[in-house]
Structure formats: structure tokens, C-alpha cells
């Protein structure tokens, strides 16, 4: 099934928000081809037709807490770890293109 192309890897990198350079894309395409070749072995497990998927190791149910306001982290403590903050908020680069 595998055989992943360089264009596919470039597309996946875009989806993953990774600005990879040409050298990285070439390397990754070759490595992913080998890795996918190995994990494709999963299709050899043929007795899976009526098997339900396991998403979690132990059965999990939604956990609820009472809907009351409790103290959260102080805003300045949280913003102290941010790369850029301004006026009590996270500062981000521009979101819209200027065109």
C-alpha cells in the first residue's frame, strides 16, 4: 500500500504546520516509505472484521464536576510563560493577509 511521494509529505507537513526545508522533505519521504512499509504489516491481521476498536486501555466514562466557579491560575503567571504578551493577553502575529 505505501509508497509515499515527496508531494504527499510536503502536504502532510503543511497540515502539521511544519515549515520543512527541501532537504528535510527528501529525507522524510524516504524514511516514511520504509516506516509505512513496516507498519503496513498491520493489514496482515485478518481476523479484525467484527472486532470493535479500542480507543482507550481502561473503560472511561465522562467525568463531571459541579458547575461552580473555582479559582484558576493567576493571569500574570500564565502570561509570564508566553513568548509575547500585551495588555494582559497573548500577543500574536497578524492573522489576516494584507491584500
Amino acid at each position, binding site marked *: 500500500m505505501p509508497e509515499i511521494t515527496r508531494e*504527499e509529505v510536503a502536504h502532510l507537513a503543511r*497540515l502539521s504546520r511544519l515549515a520543512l526545508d527541501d532537504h528535510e522533505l527528501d529525507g522524510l519521504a524516504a524514511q516514511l516509505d520504509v516506516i*509505512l512499509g*513496516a507498519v503496513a504489516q498491520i493489514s496482515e*491481521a485478518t481476523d479484525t472484521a467484527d472486532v*470493535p476498536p479500542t480507543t482507550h486501555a481502561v473503560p472511561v466514562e465522562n467525568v463531571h464536576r459541579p458547575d461552580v466557579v473555582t479559582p484558576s491560575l493567576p493571569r500574570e503567571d500564565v502570561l509570564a510563560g*508566553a*513568548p509575547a504578551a500585551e495588555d494582559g493577553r497573548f500577543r500574536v*502575529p497578524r492573522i489576516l493577509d494584507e491584500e
Partner: protein
Amino acid sequence: MTDLTRLTAVETAAAIASRETSAVDVAQAHLDRIAAVDGAVHAFLHVDAEGALAQAARVDAGEVTGPLAGVPLALKDVIVTKGVPTTVGSRILEGWRPPYDATVTERLRAAGIVVLGKTNMDEFAMGSSTEHSAYGPTRNPWDLTRIPGGSGGGSAAALAAYEAPLAVGTDTGGSIRQPASVTGTVGVKPTYGGVSRYGLVAFSSSLDQAGPCARTVLDAALLHEAMAGHDPRDSTSIDAPVPPVVAAARKADVAGLRVGVVKELSGEGYETGVQERFDEAVALLQELGATVTEVSCPHFAYALPAYYLIAPSEASSNLARFDSVRYGQRVGDDGVHSLEEVMSITRAAGFGAEVKRRIVLGTYALSSGYYDAYYGQAQKVRTLITRDFTAAFESVDVLVSPASPGVAFPLGAKLDDPLAMYRQDLATIPSNLYGGPAMSVPAGLSEGLPVGLQVMAPVQRDDLLYLVGGAFEAARPFASTPLTWEHA
């Protein structure tokens, strides 16, 4: 005078409680030890001398008591610590000081445990050698030219080099047990949900589990008890009593216990010396009164591919939070690049090669057109692996195998071959997929290097691991690290 760094955690706590020594002296002895040897070992990414001595002083003042009060510990850098740098071995979080403590961190402090610092690891816990750390590899104290295992190589190496008697690791596919195996130490992955994941930087949320690392089985049990238990802040935390691990470690008796040798976890891919030590270990358990049978778990053959689809898929989602907005590094914010471009530039600069590999692999496995064949199929295989465990535990109490297919390999040996690195987790992955607890205990040497025996138990029967590990240790005390490089 006794060398305080050579004591077990139990001995250390007793010496402090009886005022034979002080917690501050114990902490200082370990800080001195780190200063003396960590240049060669590189187990630590950050040493918190001030915090350690302050906590030790609280113990000496009688403000905190408990079975491990005053005992020093090395904390894997994937567990957040308020005000103390937490990098997860990645450049992307360089310089970040978390605004809160993980539940594990809180519980360690409440138990009077003295956190010496944060230990080195493969970036985001992705790796089996600690060579994928952005801050340089950790070296194996048994042989400095070799890897200490991974991802928790720093925690395991700190124990083997006598820099700390206790450590905390996390295990997604073997990151506690494989380092324990190759450094001759004890490492336990508790039942999934047994220890809170609140404040554990997520890699693969359905598999990640924090657990204890130590030089003896009883020390590991005491740490297990201090860390474990229900936490309302983790929705996957098990709301049930912690299995009686300390009592089991003290009982240390396998008479009448039914032990199953997993047929599929041997043979091809396992080194001869590892197989020999394993066979001897099984014979010893039999001598100690256990009944041994061979058990087949046919779907374990697919555990490795299932894991390398599920874990990268979850990682590709979890690591989306490193977006250069809320914490860590930001690269390329020059007023020209847009937010999305800055995110992409930051992530490309901040993540290492293995992390990028897994994010892209996971994104692929989750993408439309491939989802059913890869991620969906892996989740079904996960069910079959769980059924193999359940069926096996109908006829035996515990399963055993080698913990790692080989002894510590030379640094660099598998760095250019991701698949060879992934195969280090052959024997440890099944328990993560199933969710049951598993332990690695030292089982002698091959080529002068440690081999680990893995014990696997049913969900919420963590006590059985300690029963077996304790009996094994009592019959065959673990070898001390020779530290030939230090005395050369």
C-alpha cells in the same frame, strides 16, 4: 563514614527518621555526587539545588513526615514543576517555567521527597536511547560509550550512577522499562490510570503512564504508593484503591504463583545472551515455587505496527498545542510573517527530527483515505492484543519475557535507522496497548551489561509485579554498577 549516596531509599528514610543523619546532609551528598559525575553521565537537564535543600530543611524541621521523607529523587523532565524549567527534552520549550505543579510533583512534595532536578529524555519521550534529546545524550553508567535506554534514560542513569536513589519515569511504549533493563535498575509502568497524568506533558494520551524507578523492588513499591491514587483532575484516573504494592514487595513470595512465558516474545530479534539470562530467570522462579507454562499471545506479533500507528497519531494531535502562542519559543515573528507562518517556522525550528517524523506519520495515518487501513485497523488490533492478555490471565497469574531484546548498544548505532530503534520496544509495547502493569527487574549480565526480566500482570494487579520482583531480588541480589570510568 557511610556514603549516603549508596543507601537504598528505605535505609535513607530510616537514617533520617532516627536522626542518624539529616535530610539536608543527604540532599547535599547527592548534589555533590551530581556535581562530581554528571558531567560524564549527563542524566540531568536541570539541577534544583535551592529547591532540594529547602524541601530537605522542611523534613528536618519535622514539617513533613512519611516513609520516604527526606529521600532524594530525580524527576523526568516531562512532569511539570512550578517555577522549575520543564523542557521535555525539546528546544521548543527551552526556558519555560511552568505556572503549576503536576499531581505527581505535588504528591512527591507532600510525601517529603526531595526533588533534586529534572532528568534528560528523548524529545517528547519519543525514542529508546535518549539520543533524541535536544540537549545531548545521556550516557550509560555501566559503559559511557553506550546508551542508557529511552526515553527515560536520564532517570535510569541517575539511579545507576548513584546520583539519586529514586526516580520518576513515564512509559508510553517502554520508556521506563527498557532504560531500567539496560541500566540494571528497577522500573515499573503502573496500570494505565493508576498514576495521575495531570501535568504530564502528553505524547500519546491513551498510552502514557508515569511510574516509579529505583535500585530495589521495595524502594520502587514505596514510591509507587506515594505517587498513585485517584485524581479528579485526570478524567482517566482510576477511582479505586491503589493495589497493595508495598505489602507485596515485603511478602516477596512466588510459591504457587502461575507464571506464563510468552512464546511470541522470544527468538528472532532477541540477543542470545538476553535469552540465556531470561531462561535462567524463569528456572529460578520455578525453583522458588512458581509453576511455569508457555503461553501464546498470537497478536503480539502486530503490537509494534499497531503502536507505531496509534502513538504517532495521538502525538500529531497532542503536539498541536506547541503553537508559539502560549508557551515556549517563537521563531520568525518579524512583523512580516503571518501567525500561521510563524507557527510553522517555530515548530520546524523547535522540534527535532524524530518528533517531526512522528507528527507527519501520525497526520498521514489519520488522514482521510488512510484512516481505516491504518489507525482504525491498529485500534482493532489493540482489542485483539487485549483479548490475548485476558485469555492468558485465565490460566496464569503473571506473564514474563525479556524486558528489552538486547543489552545497551553503542551511542549512535541505531540513530540513522528508525525501525531498528523502534524494535527496542518489541516486548514492552503490548502492556501499554492493553493497559496492564509491567516491571523490569535486573536479571544478570550479558557481555558485562545488564539484562532485564519483564513481569506483566492484569489490570489493577500491580501488586503481583512486586511479589515476583521482590522474590526474584531476594534470591538473586542485583549487581551494583561497576563505575569503572570513575575509578580509572
